[in-house]
């Protein structure tokens, strides 16, 4: 299947817009996979697929987020490209999720370039500051946002325009072993996000809570929401307890 240039541009613009939101308009959290999946689906005529792919990628990329100055592998670009290509080429979920991996790296590279290009803006702003030209300084926001749009659009367009044909061909002749492989990896990938989260929060003191959550889920079959509430209850106990200890210490000191 050859994708028409006009349609490719439309698809890329839709994908780029949602990827761009992460930097251009950070508020409102529309860049979460679970949200931008259905939104991309809405524009390309298959919301259902967007919901499922978005939900799956939300789990896969859970815990993978920017810490400090590091730019994380990009979950938004992963979602937009995976959703778009799987709608265009009629892929199933597993293939779409696999596609998301190279897309996420591509999105990351685009952003690293934007972070570099935007550095000289600081010096332009410094020069405007010498003359108290606040309006001009503020206008640089648009420049920065535009840079993020361009660096997002180029890799997205390349993947949509050149990727669609490749992906369609691959999908039509997908051998069984490859399909099995992708299915298994999709099921295993959430371990990465959870593993990263675990090592971030790990401290031996917290293991009891981890075990409580684990056992209530596996042995007693508690729902996620009920376990979150139990967790919140224990968190509140710890919080109020530490407040009292602080009070006691202060009173003794006084």
């Amino acid at each position, binding site marked *: 299947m050859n994708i028409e240039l006009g349609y490719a541009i439309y698809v890329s613009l839709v994908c780029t817009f949602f990827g761009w939101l992460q930097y251009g308009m950070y508020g409102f959290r529309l860049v979460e996979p679970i949200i931008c999946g259905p939104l991309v689906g809405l524009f390309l005529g298959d919301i259902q697929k967007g919901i499922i792919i978005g*939900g799956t990628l939300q789990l896969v990329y859970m815990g993978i987020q920017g810490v400090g100055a590091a730019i994380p592998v990009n979950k938004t670009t992963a979602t937009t490209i995976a959703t778009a290509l799987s709608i265009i080429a009629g892929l199933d979920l597993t293939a779409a999720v696999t596609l998301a991996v190279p897309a996420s790296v591509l999105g990351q590279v685009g952003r690293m370039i934007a*972070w570099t290009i935007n550095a000289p803006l600081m010096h332009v702003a410094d020069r405007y500051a010498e003359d108290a030209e*606040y309006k001009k300084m503020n206008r640089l926001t648009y420049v*920065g946002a535009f840079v993020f749009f361009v660096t997002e659009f180029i890799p997205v367009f390349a993947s949509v325009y050149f990727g669609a044909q490749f992906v369609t061909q691959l999908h039509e002749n997908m051998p069984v072993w490859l399909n099995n*492989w992708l299915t298994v*990896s999709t099921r295993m990938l959430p371990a990465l996000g959870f593993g990263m989260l675990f*090592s971030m929060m*790990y401290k031996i003191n917290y293991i009891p809570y981890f075990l409580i959550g684990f056992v209530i*889920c596996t042995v007693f079959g508690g729902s996620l929401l009920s376990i*979150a509430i139990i967790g919140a209850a224990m968190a509140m106990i710890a919080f109020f307890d530490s407040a009292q200890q602080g009070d006691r210490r202060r009173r003794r000191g006084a």
Partner: protein
Amino acid sequence: MSEVLEPNAQKERISLTQKDLTKCMLRFAIFPMSTINYERFQTLQFFMAMSPILEKLYSTKEDRIAAGKRHMAFFNTTPEWIGFIIGLVTATEEQAANMPDSDEKTELQDSTNVIKASLMGPLAGIGDSLRATADAIIGAISAGFALSGSILGALTMFVLGNIYYLGIAYYGYFYSYKNGMKVISEMNKTNILERIMHSATILGMTALGALIPSWVGFNLRTNIHIGDYVLDIQAELDKIIPGLAPLAFTLFVAWLYRKNMTSLKLVGLIFVLALVFSLIGISL
């Protein structure tokens, strides 16, 4: 010899209105990242959020130049926690703008950069971890809806995610603006950040204990034939405790991550392992 831009604004006490504050809050909450870069990160967006306030507080060109330079100093933190810092800076600038010119005034103005520098690191450390924990819980609950094909997942994420993000941005900003510098001494006295972090980790760890067996698909569904005896590995493992295999696998990944393996390498490793498992047919 300062050039007066708005002569009428002189001498009277300048106080910020709710409208000014809300404008600043919306600016930093919606556009914190638009010019982010490797040199000074969120600096320009911090200035952009502050600029309507600075314009109102300082009417002379000299003051505006000084303020512009002051707020082009390095700044970066977790976006929703910018509010906490910018609220303190707003309060300090307002106080300074209403003082007569003196060394004390300059000192107070310069202290805004000390506020930024001393708070942005700790707040980023706590902010990033809190965000990861909140996102994991909200994301997993939402994903549960989404995977059954319901749009409710997206809505849950949107509503809860924004309550978290905009909630911290809004309350952080107005709380620290109203209470001013005593927020910092209060913070040190009550140890509030550490306590929040401790409680959030308890919640996060409890949820994580449930998330791993729910979402990590790593089951050893295979039968090994030994003569007439058929050994079903997964059934045997389930007799010990269900969910043991996903738990072991996730902890293995966590351990590798602690050993400084990058996330990209780990993705590669998972794909390689998945290939091996799918070929010998032991996991699905």
